């Protein structure tokens, strides 16, 4: 009884995940029917607005170019991404766009795509493969540059003198490592800016608030600036600063990264000073790259998405354009 129930549950779960990896585009048309180009897109999931915006951007660009897009949402499962790619290959798509969940484990499926002469464009995250001819190119933001941009802006805003709390992202994740590296590189040329403490807030609003609450007791008035690796932690820090009677945006400079809609709202309210966007609108670049590869042109292995910084001077004007 025990065992049967469990098996039934497990079976149900497996069926769900199989269903999840069926491309949800119009089926039965077959690739290339009517001379229309068909491209497959394997997305990790839709667990945050950033990723949803990325998906929308790619769908919109496909529609604009008259390309039929076969879309698969892997719901956070690498295996589902791999089986979606396998089904794209079986359907004979002309190209594949992949937002890989993790860096490793892609060799076999990328090799299958290469053997079928289907170019794969990676978006927003890279893969670790020995042979970089397995994919056409990676289109991504440069996290190190984002950190440096935030650091330089903070240094200028504070007049080269500050006590900074750094709220790091999830320990060991690429954006956290690189945004820290970029920021600290910028700080190297500002000896009067002291990073008082650098602790992880795990990219979460709640952890950002908890850490800030604790560090306010330790460093108190010495804190004149906060640098958060994402907007969520910055909002958490702002709440902790306000609860402690400080005025974020006025007597404590707060800078973060991501450029989410709510961060723009916080800048307009005067509580957040600046955010460096990490632009998810990769659709245009992704399809342009695919076209180039299909025409046989060579591409660099990394195409950097240009990220901009927004502060009180331009956030209000940009807010209506933020869809995520």
């Amino acid at each position, binding site marked *: *009884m*025990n065992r049967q*129930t*469990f098996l039934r*549950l497990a079976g149900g*779960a497996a069926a769900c995940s199989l269903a999840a990896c069926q491309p949800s585009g119009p089926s039965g048309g077959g690739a290339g029917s009517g001379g229309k180009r068909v491209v497959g897109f394997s997305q990790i999931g*839709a*667990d*945050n*607005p950033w990723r*949803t915006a990325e998906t929308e951007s790619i769908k919109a660009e496909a529609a604009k170019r008259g390309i039929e897009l076969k879309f698969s949402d892997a719901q956070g499962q690498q295996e589902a991404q791999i089986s979606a790619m396998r089904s794209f290959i079986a359907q004979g798509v002309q190209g594949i766009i992949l937002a890989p969940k993790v860096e490793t484990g892609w060799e076999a499926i990328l090799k299958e795509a290469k053997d079928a002469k289907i170019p794969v464009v990676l978006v927003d995250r890279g893969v670790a493969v020995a042979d970089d001819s397995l994919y056409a190119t990676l289109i991504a933001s440069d996290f190190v540059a984002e950190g440096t941009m935030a650091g330089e802006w903070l240094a200028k805003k504070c007049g080269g003198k500050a006590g900074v709390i750094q709220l*790091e992202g999830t*320990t*060991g994740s690429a954006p956290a490592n690189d945004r820290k590296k970029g920021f600290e590189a910028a700080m190297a040329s500002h000896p009067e800016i002291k990073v*008082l*403490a*650098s*602790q*992880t807030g*795990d*990219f*979460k*609003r*709640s952890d950002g*608030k*908890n*850490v800030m*609450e*604790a*560090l306010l*007791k*330790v460093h108190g008035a010495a804190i004149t600036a906060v640098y958060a690796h994402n907007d*969520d932690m910055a*909002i*958490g820090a702002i*709440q902790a600063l306000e*609860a*402690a*009677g400080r005025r974020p945006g006025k007597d404590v400079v707060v800078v973060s990264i991501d450029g989410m809609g*709510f961060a723009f709202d916080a800048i307009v309210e005067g509580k957040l000073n600046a955010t460096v966007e990490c632009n998810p609108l990769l659709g245009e670049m992704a399809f342009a790259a695919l076209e180039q590869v299909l025409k046989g042109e060579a591409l660099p292995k990394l195409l950097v998405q240009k990220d901009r910084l927004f502060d009180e001077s331009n956030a209000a004007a940009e807010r209506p354009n933020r869809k995520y």
Partner: protein
Amino acid sequence: MNRFRTPLLWPLAALVALLVFNALASPGFFDVEWKDGRLYGTVVDICNQGARVPMLLALGMTLVIATGGVDLSVGSLMAVSGAVAAVQVNAGASLGQAVGLALLLCSGLGLVNGVLIAKVRLQPIIATLVMMVAGRGLAMLLTGSQMVPFKHEGLTFLANGAVGGLPVPIPLVLGVALLAGVALRGSAWGLFIEATGDNETASRLAGLPTGGVRLLVYAFSGLCAGMSGLLEASNIAAADPARMGDTRELDAIFAVVAGGTALTGGRFSLAGSLVGALLLQTLTLTLYNQNVPPAVAPVPKALVILVVCLLHSPKLREQWGRWRSPSPA
């Protein structure tokens, strides 16, 4: 030997040791100020942050573990609770409605755990693992997978307000603990829980309502997770369905074990679990205060946990006893 049987002794000793370390290593650790009508200081933070999650979750987890089970779903149920409350207040519901619905739903999902375990006879780890996955999915479904911010004075007061100078979560968790303690120790139900964990078959044959005991403890664990989720959502004025409560069930299990409730079941100490949760929170804040790099912070944390668990080990204590008195009477 009797003094070693007090489950409170070892987590308290570890907590005191940690506090002494902080008194020496970080000046101002015990400073408490009166600010905007409330107490303000590191120790208040420890109690407040500790009350919101690990202490509340540990209360529910203690009873579950005492029956020989485990509840992995509490982190996900936190997310469900936060999501329900946020969606409700944004739709114009009153505080009572939002809180009531969130707590009702979480107790109900806890009860489902109980039914799967007591009636369908699934292993607790499997049944609650299913609920952990399903609960996260439900939270995502309720919110459309997006963070749901809210502006609602009543709901944000739960975690940000103060009662008698203390942040609300502190008196709240103490109240829940006191109620549960009095209800269980004042009646035979505490004993029923322990008997169920000790030997379920014998207890059932002796006429104890072991099925009812299990339904009760899992529903209570769900309720505690619901309260914790409300406080976490209240704290940041938003529900975070994807990440709220993520892996916090492990914190709760640690607090319970550190507090002297054995994973094998059969006995429990609510006070011990509260001290265990405080120990964990003090440790977390100590690492922030000392600015230990996040990459290596898990190491000292693991060491303290290991030491507390070793102190609880009957085998080691036996050895220690022999070493202290080489010729036992």
